[in-house]
């Protein structure tokens, strides 16, 4: 089995370096990160008194809920203990606009179960955790963005490419996804002829796929592309998305000013190339193209 990321080479190099005792070398993995001064940190920004922005800016720190187990998106680098990924970079961009430097951000792990409660109770100031914008969630929290759009897709073994051409050809096949995830629910509801298997992480599913124990892995295409890039000889993504997932930034419901501010920050990052920079340093490492940033939904 091969390393699933381009970081293999980096890892080898890193090991050569760490032999000298430097332990802070980036082992890479699926993460990917940028230097601490990659994005603009606005010096002394001013905001309307009493706004969330003013509060955070004055405090000089911010708590952002992210994922810790999704290489490329939001992932805790096991070697350095630092979070890495596209979501993390977006967090740094927004924080920079509040005048908060990257090292003043406190990244908190949020899992699917506790994202809404964490926002409601203020345990985090915002959530950037491959958090799809849905109408149901909009009733509980507000969303800025989307800052990325992807769709549910299938990762398969190359030799099965003629057999599995999309979700409709899954009858009798076993599809693997993460326990309690939306992609899993979608397969179970819309394609009941497919058998399903669920584990705690996609890595476990991909491992089962490589050993031919399951026939496909399903989740957002962005995540699958990373795994395919890690083992290009054996795995490939079908490439026919059958849903639209818009990743948004979750914040307290009806904090319109804060939402507007985040949207403005994102727009700025779209325009000055920071968004692309963030993508290339993380998800783009798997070989996928950044493309055009998605249009913001300023509802």
């Amino acid at each position, binding site marked *: *089995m*091969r390393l699933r*990321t381009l970081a293999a080479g980096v*890892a080898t190099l890193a090991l050569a370096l760490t032999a000298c005792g430097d332990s802070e070398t980036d082992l890479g*993995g699926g993460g990917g990160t940028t230097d601490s001064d990659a994005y603009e940190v606005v010096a002394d920004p001013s905001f309307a008194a009493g706004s969330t922005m003013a509060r955070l800016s004055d405090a000089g720190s911010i708590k952002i809920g992210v994922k810790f*187990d999704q290489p490329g998106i939001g992932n805790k*680098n*096991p*070697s350095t203990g630092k979070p890495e990924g596209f979501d993390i970079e977006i967090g740094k961009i927004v924080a920079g606009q509040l005048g908060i430097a990257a090292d003043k951000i406190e990244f908190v792990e949020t899992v699917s179960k506790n994202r809404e409660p964490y926002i409601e109770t203020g345990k985090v100031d915002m959530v950037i955790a491959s958090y799809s914008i849905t109408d149901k969630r909009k009733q509980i929290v507000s969303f800025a963005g989307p800052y990325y759009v992807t769709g549910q897709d299938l990762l398969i073994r190359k030799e099965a490419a003629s057999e599995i051409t999309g979700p409709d050809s899954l009858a009798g096949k076993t599809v693997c996804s993460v326990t309690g995830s939306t992609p899993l629910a979608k397969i179970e509801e819309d394609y009941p002829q497919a058998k399903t298997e669920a584990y705690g992480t996609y*890595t476990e599913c991909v491992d089962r796929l490589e050993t031919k124990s399951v026939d496909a892995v399903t989740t957002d295409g962005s995540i699958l592309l990373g795994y395919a890039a890690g083992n290009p000889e054996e795995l490939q993504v079908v490439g026919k998305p059958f849903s639209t997932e818009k990743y948004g930034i979750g914040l307290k419901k009806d904090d319109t000013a804060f939402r507007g501010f985040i949207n403005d920050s994102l727009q700025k990052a779209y325009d000055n190339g920071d968004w692309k920079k963030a993508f290339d340093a993380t998800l783009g490492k798997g070989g996928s193209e950044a493309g055009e940033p998605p249009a913001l939904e300023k509802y």
Partner: protein
Amino acid sequence: MSSVLYDAPGPRARRRMLIFSVLGTAVVALLVLFAVLRLKENGVFSARQWEPFTDPGIQRLLFKALWATVKAALVAIALALVLGVLLAAGRLSDHAWVRTPATMFIEFFRAVPLVLLILFLFLGFSDELAFIGRIFGSSGQGAFGPLVVGLMLYNGSVLAEVFRSGVAAVPRGQAEAAYALGMRKNQVMRMILVPQATRIMLPAIVSQCVVALKDTALGFIISYEELLRQGRLIYTNFGNIVPTLFVIAAIYIIMCMALSGLASYLERRLRQRGSRVVALDPAAEMGGGGSAVGEPAELVR
């Protein structure tokens, strides 16, 4: 060497044993060889799969995880000992209104799977139990409290039965003599039975520590940052599930074997002195939900 099954072997039996010995070794060796070759063929032993473990950062992560595992086990066992004493006292009480609830408590927590219990505590009480994590400097998402409390409830219930058997294992004459001297029940317990019982059940208590240590692995389901959970962090980044499992298994096996060794050393020493010993029955050692309703810990000799 004579055992219940066979006498000391004669020349023919020895020859036969040699043949079986060679055959047995061959079969075992072939099985191991087969497994190793297959795993090798499938890239499990490739350098790239194992390289992450030479990185100091990863090693530090594993050490931290090891400490988290040990800490959870230590705190859980300490709490379980206290709970166990209370429950055992309850079960040995002369008053039915104390005895019955204690018995029901023990039976319930020995009947419910530990996974279910920990999951329930995590989903329903992580905020209420967060203070335990704060006391022991392990705030990690409030998973420490539910894990430790789950382990405490289960191990405490098992230990209560161990304590009860321990007290019952003290020769009856001891208590009778004490009563004859005019001691009250409280005194007999405190001054005669408990000190002697403690020695008798020490091996069982140490064995229960092994069980608790093994069961901390259930913490991974509620994302407590113990060995298995951090192992997952490693393999989601390097796609090396099997090597990671090997490393973590090795750590667990070394730790638990050391403790098990201590338990059997204590047991041997007690036996040599001709003392009785309370041993855990095999089911209690299985962990994750332990031994049967109403089956007390096994009393050896």
